[in-house]
């Protein structure tokens, strides 16, 4: 139980990462695959935040006097996650627009049927 409470964020993060990868690997529907990419992204972001967390820490904002600098979480992963989220948004937006175009061309989103480019 202690193990779980110690590592729950890691387990959650990697759980999301593996769920995302698993979806990308086994699902045939493009939208599901894009959702998988989203989950994968989220998992990575969660992991980054978990890396910077310290037990019972506060946000690294000196909004009022008397905050203990030693009790603040690492601000770097938060900055990284900010960037990473934006990148995730960009990729998802582009992927969805491509999915729209692809559906217009093929009339399906089943990746097993979208195999004109091969060999």
């Amino acid at each position: 139980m202690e193990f779980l409470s110690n590592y729950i964020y890691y387990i959650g993060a990697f759980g999301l990462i593996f769920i995302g990868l698993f979806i990308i690997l086994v699902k045939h529907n493009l939208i599901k695959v894009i959702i998988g990419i989203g989950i994968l992204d989220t998992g990575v972001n969660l992991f980054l935040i978990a890396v910077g967390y310290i037990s019972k820490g506060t946000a690294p904002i000196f909004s009022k006097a008397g905050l203990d600098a030693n009790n603040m979480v690492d601000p770097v992963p938060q900055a990284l996650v900010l960037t990473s989220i934006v990148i995730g948004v960009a990729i998802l937006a582009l992927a969805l627009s491509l999915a729209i175009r692809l559906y217009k061309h093929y009339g399906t989103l089943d990746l097993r049927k979208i195999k004109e480019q091969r060999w």
Partner: protein
Amino acid sequence: MKKIISLILLFIICLGIVFCLQDIPFGAAKTKVGHYYIDNGREETGATNIVTSVVLNYRGFDTLGEVTILFLAAIGLGAVLATLKKKGKRQIEPASLILKTGCRFLFPLILLFGAYIFIHGHLTPGGGFQGGAIIASAFLLVYLGCRERKINEVANKITESIAGLVFIVMGLIGLTVGGHYFLSNFMPKGEINTLFSSGIIPIIYIAIGFKVGSELTGIIDNLMEKS
């Protein structure tokens, strides 16, 4: 079969990560760089929100890249959807009066809230990206509520470009006046914990707020209109 193989492979990767994570104890003390930022961030940048000082000053170049990526997504989306033939006028069912009025009422408030978020980025949680996203949500609300309304694409583009240019120009001014470093905080840092403090951070965050807002709006617009 494929599922089993996938699971086995993922399990192996999982094992590797577990081995690796042994060296990264959860919730331990802060690491080197983070510690430095928390200790020196206020003096060096003048922002009380250390995340903001990291995002815009210490790692400002990343943020420039980040803004670029969002810009890229908007442009890329436009490029992908551009050649799509528009179907005839879509039949839009007009929204109910309550919805319309609600939208009209909420729209300026959301804008105001977004502006508040990005203007106070260096003091409180939040910043340009968050504020921009909130602004974009206001436009999304308009799309959902007052369906016949459209954004002014030209104005949107101009906002987007100018906001991006402001970022670059601020950086270049830093290159010429502020100790010859790109994106250096050449403006007076002011008194900590006041609105007009921490040099170029608020200016850039405002620019980012506008840029993110207009870009996300552009994306929403493209997806709504062209599909």
